[in-house]
């Protein structure tokens, strides 16, 4: 297990190098002169020259790249042009809402997805199966951000049950936090539950074909205990992976959901940074989300290898 973990961590190094390099080159993808674009049309030649020196853009490209690597190794993501503070501080301030949103959406997705998939798979071809899978297909195809808007219209505007948008910290006002978070979590979680349900269903069908299930049936066990005691547990193994993948997808979904519900998280941070041409913040958010994304994928693989030892030797 330790060798496997070490191997996976080592394999991550070149990928991280590529990721960091891509993020570095983002600023060089700006058409024309990046500094002129960042400072806007009012800047004169001297200001542009000064800014270029401050940003280090006057040095040769390889040197800039090496300086970028060195800065990152020190945990320095640069300074926000607009927010007047280090990018790391800005990220830290905005991480909580995004993490809370991701966690609650994951909770909703698992709560809906796993039982529906298991029931559909256990009764393959039945009316329940068809109804649930049609719903799941819709869940995959209905765009999450549009679904959120419809929920806002129905539950906030028409019924007035929940606030239209906003955010409260769970640590300060748990009740208000729940009221604000309910719609974002449900609309983001519902879209993801469809994927979980589809996978859970096919895992269940796969497991129910195994010999030991036939044995369980042959020795006269009730269908209920065959399905829910014998098959269910083994069907959950791949579902763990899907839950991990869902978590990774949720990062992107959370960014969009934050815009719908005005949640002051990383998604709103990157969008407002783009509008203000605050490129260090854009780079910081992208780098942070990519790091979290890679970390989740690593954890999923390790957990999977832990549950299913055959994986380690592949």
């Amino acid at each position, binding site marked *: 297990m330790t060798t496997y973990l070490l191997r996976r961590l080592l394999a991550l190094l070149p*990928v991280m190098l590529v990721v960091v390099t891509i*993020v570095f080159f*983002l600023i060089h993808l700006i058409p024309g002169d990046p500094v002129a674009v960042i400072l806007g049309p009012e800047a004169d030649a001297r200001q542009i020259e000064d800014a270029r020196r401050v940003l280090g853009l006057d040095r040769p490209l390889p040197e800039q790249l090496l300086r970028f690597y060195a800065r990152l190794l020190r945990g320095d993501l640069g300074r926000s042009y607009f927010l007047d503070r280090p990018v790391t501080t800005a990220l830290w301030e905005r991480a909580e809402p995004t993490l809370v949103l991701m966690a609650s959406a994951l909770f909703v997705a698992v709560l809906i997805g796993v039982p529906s998939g298991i029931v559909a798979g256990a009764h393959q071809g039945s009316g329940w199966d068809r109804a649930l899978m049609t719903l799941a297909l819709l869940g995959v195809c209905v*765009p999450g951000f549009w679904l959120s808007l419809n929920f806002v219209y129905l539950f906030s505007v028409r019924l007035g049950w929940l606030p239209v948008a906003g955010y409260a910290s769970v640590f300060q006002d748990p009740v208000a936090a729940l009221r604000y978070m309910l719609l974002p979590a449900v609309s983001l979680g519902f879209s993801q539950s469809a994927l979980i349900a589809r996978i859970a269903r096919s895992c269940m069908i796969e497991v129910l074909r195994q010999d030991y299930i036939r044995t369980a049936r042959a020795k006269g066990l009730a269908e209920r205990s065959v399905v829910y005691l014998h098959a269910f547990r083994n069907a959950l193994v791949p579902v763990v992976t899907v839950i991990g993948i869902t978590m990774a997808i949720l990062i992107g979904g959370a960014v969009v959901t934050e815009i719908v519900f005005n949640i002051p998280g990383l998604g709103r941070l990157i969008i407002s940074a783009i509008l203000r041409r605050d490129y260090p913040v854009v780079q910081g958010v*992208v780098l942070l989300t990519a790091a979290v994304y890679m970390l989740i994928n690593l954890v999923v693989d390790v957990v999977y290898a832990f549950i299913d030892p055959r994986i380690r030797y592949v």
Partner: protein
Amino acid sequence: MSDGVAVDQRAAVPAASPEAAAAGARARLVRRILRNPSILIGGSVFLLLVLVALTADVLSPYNPTRLYPDQRLKPPGARNLLGTDEFGRDIASLVLHGSRVSLLVGGVTMVLTSLGGVVIGLVAGYYRRLDLVIMRVMDGLMAFPAILLAIALMAARGPGVWNVIISLSVVYLPRTAMLIRSTALSVRELDYVLAAQALGRGGPAIAFRHILPNCLGPLLVQGTFIFAYAVLAEAILGFLGVGVPPYVPSWGNVIASGKNVIREAFWVSAFPGVALTLAGLSLNLLGDGLRDTLDPRLRTE
């Protein structure tokens, strides 16, 4: 069902010539595709969307970019079938024209990722020395959450249809490249490829003439799903305000403007969303159906 039996019997009869066998296999594949309900439904809806995009100018009752200040936020009715937005623009005309941006972005992204993916995947699958470098770069691109990489690229390049297409192509290219590479890797060890090598065929000839045809099925399936992702991603970028410019009628842009008036006018965001869902549904059905008919691993079941 009786047709299925007949097909099986025909398959059991030894074919007269390889050409006849290939033609028979092709005819059977076409029949299987036409009989698949997912492909039929998904394909029909998708064709309808293409027709709508092509004839949007004729179908639209109004010019979608023309503002009618005295007709602001009118609910669906006789004059405006799907209502108007905050500038008095006709929602029906906006939705009809929005299909153009969606299909353009989805289609061109599909073509670009397929072309790029084939070249990169075949090179990586055939020239083992380049494989290591290419795959690390692809891994790096895949290490970003897709929509965030697209947002970041749009942040650098600025709004515009072509920038959306290029960003999404970069985001989705690695998936196709890896698919082609793995297919190429499994095919290159087969006897007929070894035979071609023994006959003195060069690398590119083998890659394109002998390995590529085996990748076409998976490529088409993958391309259909990338089309669906790209349509959705384009709408998301538009909704976030970093996609095509706001004055271009696109579903994402209209939904974004509907968000601001959701208290007074739900129809502004509702109808483009329905169109977007329909497009996604048709492409997903088409992709599912194509996968079931074209993927040899699933066919044996």
